[in-house]
């Protein structure tokens, strides 16, 4: 979680200092979801990610230097600078891609699960998506496919309560997004997405069910983004100060840190982890800054295999 937090803070810094262009959707505040879920996954399992995807990619094993170079458009980026922040993919660790289309990962993740089943591996696919994506039609199409074929896929809804600038409950029917699994016979649950242990336990159960042939699940993780929709959005105006403070107080990292200290882990040990991660992120920025831009010839490469 710390690695993601420091990575995102660094993104904010390089963005505002002009070292990064395009769009940056920060994951700060939602780290427990990615970490809880990906900790329960194997290296050869698959994930699809979202436009707010840095956290998923870090948690699934993406390398910080390759990710940082990617968001800065350098040729040493994991996608050679051709994808950028919204399209980080690392096939070597099962990251089938962040996606600039809201709900863009539904088909891919469910198809990866179909593939795992037909190839008779016991791999699992996890589809991260936001509350906004739960109103895309393809969400219902893939849940139907996953249910009729018992596919090993786990749908992880990160409900940060706003689709861009619009309050989710003002545009979303029903009590919960998890309820939307019920008509398909898919188990759906709502959990505290800021509690990394709760996320891990729920994910672990769903992933094991998928791996052992028990079919798909949907977990709705209630969480909040501390920052705006993207770096250019201050995140206020449409969200009250009280509400933001309330979620700031439920910060997943601070909560977990307190719990660890309470359980007897020395604070100094946690601080050491933080220092190590900070250095790692700083190194990633330095190496990306010094990395070359792609040659313009690169624009015409990788269109086709």
């Amino acid at each position: 979680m710390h690695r993601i937090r420091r990575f995102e803070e660094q993104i904010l810094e390089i963005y505002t200092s002009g070292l990064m262009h395009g769009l940056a959707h920060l994951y700060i505040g939602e780290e427990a979801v990615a970490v809880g879920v990906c900790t329960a996954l194997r290296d050869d399992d698959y994930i699809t990610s979202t436009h707010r995807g840095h956290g998923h990619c870090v948690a699934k094993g993406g390398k910080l230097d390759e990710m940082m170079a990617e968001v800065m458009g350098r040729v040493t980026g994991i996608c050679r600078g051709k994808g950028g922040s919204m399209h980080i993919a690392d096939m070597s660790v099962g990251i089938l891609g962040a996606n600039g289309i809201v709900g863009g990962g539904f088909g891919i993740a469910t198809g990866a699960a179909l593939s795992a089943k037909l190839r008779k591996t016991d791999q699992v696919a996890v589809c991260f998506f936001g509350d906004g994506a739960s109103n895309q039609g393809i969400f219902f199409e893939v849940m139907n496919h996953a249910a009729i074929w018992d596919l090993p896929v786990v749908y992880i809804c990160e409900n940060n309560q706003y689709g861009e600038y619009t309050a989710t409950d003002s545009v979303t029917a029903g009590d919960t997004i998890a309820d939307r699994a019920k008509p398909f016979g898919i188990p759906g649950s709502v959990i505290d997405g800021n509690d990394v242990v709760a996320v891990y336990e729920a994910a672990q159960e769903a992933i094991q069910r998928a791996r052992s042939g028990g079919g798909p699940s949907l977990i709705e993780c209630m969480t909040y983004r501390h920052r705006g929709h993207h770096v250019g959005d201050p995140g206020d105006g449409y969200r009250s100060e009280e509400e933001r403070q309330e979620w700031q107080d439920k910060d997943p990292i601070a909560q977990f840190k307190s719990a660890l200290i309470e359980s007897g882990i020395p604070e100094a040990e946690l601080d050491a982890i933080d220092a190590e991660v900070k250095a790692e992120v700083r190194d990633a920025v330095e190496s990306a800054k010094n990395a070359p831009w792609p040659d313009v010839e690169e624009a015409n490469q990788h269109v086709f295999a």
Partner: protein
Amino acid sequence: MSSPEKEITFGAAVKQAIAEEMRRDETVIMLGEDIGSAGGVFKILVGLREEFGDQRIIDTPIAEAGYVGLGVGAALTGLRPIVELMFGDFMALAMDQIVNQAAKLRYMSGGQATVPITIRATMGAGRSSAAQHSQSLHAWASHIPGLKVAIPSTPKDAIGLLKTAIRDDNPVVVFEDKMMYAVKGPVPDVVDPIPFGVADIKRPGDDVTLIATSSMVLVALSAADELAKEGISAEVIDPRTMVPLDKDTLIQSVSKTGHAVIIDEGCQSFGITGELASVIYDGAFDYLEAPIVRIGAMDVPVPFSKPLEDATIPNEHDVISAVKGIL
């Protein structure tokens, strides 16, 4: 030694290509509506479910975005799916999966992702199926970098191009004119994959080049027969793939004949005929003795009523009068 030939229908050719590829490569699967239980809405796939089982010939819900999306995910992770859009018009429902996902994943990942999916879509008017079951939308796919587009006109080409599509490591959209499924043509015992980007001269000639796609190749050949009776020698060229496009063969032919008529069943405006014309203007301008004539479908939604529908589709009379107008 050439292998003996037999006459089979275009539909049988499609099935033969799929069956042969599924026998040689167990990662090839097929997803589509009614393909297993009914052998496809046009019945050309009857028997595949019996041979390959329901884990490889997979009936899907009527949910084009969903199952095409699943095909993309399966292609990313070790399978070679063939997905069928029983009517090419339904491509509109799956467009995000085709355009924003399948076509771009390799590029956006800097060459890491491989998406070997074949999307088979029908095209063509002529069945009184009206505006949502008759369109020829190959220009849509051709406009998107990252998609290859094949458009066979004969049973033999259907086999060869489909085999290449299925073996290709890229997304390929194959357009099949449903009006040709029952049309027979000669096919050798063994049909090798036909490389993409190689046009085929369906009939050699000297006076005018007729460039035609899909069922319009049959229209062009028929027109060429009529023109021959009047002493006009027409060369008929089928590009066979829109992407990649064999520009050289088109340019060479027009450089020889000095005249070109382009016939395609997509709507004429902003489409294939315009693109092919510009290829010829760029490459053979100095040899042209007359302006290029483009014959596309009328720029209207395809109407239901038979006489109206017929009026919207290019026919051999349109081709013959176009040729006479420029010679």
